[in-house]
């Protein structure tokens, strides 16, 4: 029987020893990112993973990763020891935890992420039967809160606890199902607004419980609201107002702290990219996530002007998170990974307020992840003017 509690403490010791030799902790570095301070030394970033095997953990199953707080944190720490990155996003199956607590049914395979098998709202009248879940007891909300608590308890003084839940529009998709919601938006928008009010209340309660547990606001992911999943016009009507209200609620209960809301994609598909970006930033989010698909103009997306995006984010005091393609991390080679990280740093680094994120897919060679982290550490601040040019 493996004693995970003991293993966690051993890993924490190793992490603390490594961090103690650095000029500043990853937490201090992350604070500098969010205050646009360029004295953070090197570029700040990290990665998420959806299966313990992605970071070489073989004594925890995927099912345990998504259900057992101790084992989830253990995997995050193993990754931190192995790859020495600064940002350890606390991300489970973000788009499912809250809706499961509301009544959406999930299946738990042993070797992969849980999957939705039945949405809570089959008929519109089902909405009236749903109650607001109690984050301390319903579904896996307590699991996720426990993960964040344990993370902060073990390394919260040296790492930022970047926990993520989902925004109301994405929650509505998890409750109703995407295709049903698409039809509802066309045929019965009032019902959709009623559903979004419910999803918003669920999120306010869930994020408040996380805040109460750790003292940091959780981020709100909203990939379902990212064009082309819905049109920019639909986003303006059905997603943005609820994201803004969630962020406002977070600000109120946290005494003025900013939450993070992110689409990730879709900026290039808007008729007026700059207006769209400004509108999204105006929700009050502290971060703008931009996936590399739109930096490179691949996978059906157009290209955004990265320098201009950074400039607009700087004007609105929103940190720009550039997110490398998981396929790049998977396929490599290390030289290409290094080149892409460096290029992003040259364009987005000047003036600070820039960070990196990516996902490590299953079976990714570790040397690719190492190349990514090494490249981050080689990208220094302040960024040289000639490099930026």
């Amino acid at each position, binding site marked *: 029987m493996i004693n995970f509690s003991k293993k966690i403490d051993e890993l924490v010791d190793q992490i603390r020893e490594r961090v103690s030799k650095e000029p500043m902790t990853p937490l201090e570095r992350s604070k500098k990112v969010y205050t646009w301070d360029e004295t953070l030394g090197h570029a700040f970033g990290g990665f998420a993973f*959806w*299966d313990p095997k992605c970071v070489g953990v073989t004594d925890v199953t*995927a099912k345990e990763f998504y259900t057992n707080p101790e084992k989830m944190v253990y995997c995050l720490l193993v990754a931190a020891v192995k790859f020495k990155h600064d940002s350890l996003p606390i991300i489970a199956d973000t788009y499912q935890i809250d809706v499961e607590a509301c009544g959406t049914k999930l299946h738990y*395979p042993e*070797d*992969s*992420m849980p*999957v*939705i*098998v039945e949405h809570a709202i089959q008929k519109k009248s089902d909405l009236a039967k749903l109650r607001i879940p109690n984050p301390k007891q319903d579904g896996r909300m307590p699991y996720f809160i426990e993960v964040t608590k344990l993370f902060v308890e073990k390394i919260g003084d040296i790492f930022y606890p970047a926990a993520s839940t989902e925004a109301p529009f994405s929650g509505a998709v998890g409750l109703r199902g*995407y*295709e049903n919601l*698409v*039809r509802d*938006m*066309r045929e019965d928008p009032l019902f959709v607004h009623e559903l979004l009010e419910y999803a918003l209340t669920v999120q306010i309660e869930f994020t408040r419980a996380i805040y109460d547990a750790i003292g940091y606001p959780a981020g709100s992911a909203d990939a379902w609201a990212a*064009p*082309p*999943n*819905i*049109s920019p016009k*639909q986003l303006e009507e059905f997603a943005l107002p609820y994201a803004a209200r969630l962020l406002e609620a977070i600000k109120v209960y946290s005494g003025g702290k900013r939450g993070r809301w992110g689409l990730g994609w879709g900026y290039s*598909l808007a*008729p007026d990219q700059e207006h769209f970006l400004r509108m999204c930033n105006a929700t009050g989010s502290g971060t703008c996530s931009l996936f590399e698909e739109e930096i490179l103009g691949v*996978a*059906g997306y*157009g290209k955004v002007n990265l320098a201009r995006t950074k400039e607009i984010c700087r004007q609105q005091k929103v940190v720009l998170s550039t997110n490398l393609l*998981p*396929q790049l991390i*998977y*396929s490599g080679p290390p030289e290409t990974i290094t080149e892409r990280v460096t290029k992003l740093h040259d364009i987005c680094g000047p003036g600070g307020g820039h960070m990196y994120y990516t*996902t490590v*897919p*299953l*079976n990714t060679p570790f040397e690719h992840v190492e190349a990514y982290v090494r490249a981050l550490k080689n990208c220094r601040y302040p960024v040289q003017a000639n490099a930026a040019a």
Partner: protein
Amino acid sequence: MSKEMLQELEEALVAGERDKARTTIGRILADGTSAQNIMEVMVSAMGAVGRKYECHEYFLPDLILSGQALKACMQDILPQLAKEGQHFRGKIILGAVQGDVHDIGKSIVASVLAGTGYEVFDLGVDVAPKVFAQKAQELNADVVGASSYMTTTTAQLPKVNEALKAAGIRDRVKFIIGGAATAESYVSWAGADGWGENAWAAVDLINNLLEKKAGKEDIV
């Protein structure tokens, strides 16, 4: 009159108005218009939807609503198509790989393929490799399409290829892949014959692959 109704049908399909499209189909069929003519309008409508998507005038919800309308209309004209002795352009099997329950993109592909004259068997989601192979064998399929939308399920793609080989049908079945977690660079790794970035690319890919096979099968 029929020309106007066909125009009305096309507009309803492009707008994703399922009920209106079905009502119009009923009127068109009652008017004696051939199902083949209706099919041509459906293909044209899907082309228009695709173009609107490509230029970012349409988004996924528009594709879904148009796809649902198209699928419903296809069901309505199938009996008439059979009476007219029309053949499908080929048999396509689609499914999301084992462990993957993402249905949206695959459903759009299924609708577009059905609307462009293919006989589509959608196996749904979480489909085991051997089920792809069994169904392909049983239905004498021309193409097997497997989708993966999560980086954790792409590992299933080569297994589908292996299952087709194990069933002894790989040489007569084309295998294609797609989905958000895939890329063209995955084609050789997965042992596939091609990759489609979106529904229209999938149709072009299948058209090309089956053209190469032409002579073996009677594809109209």
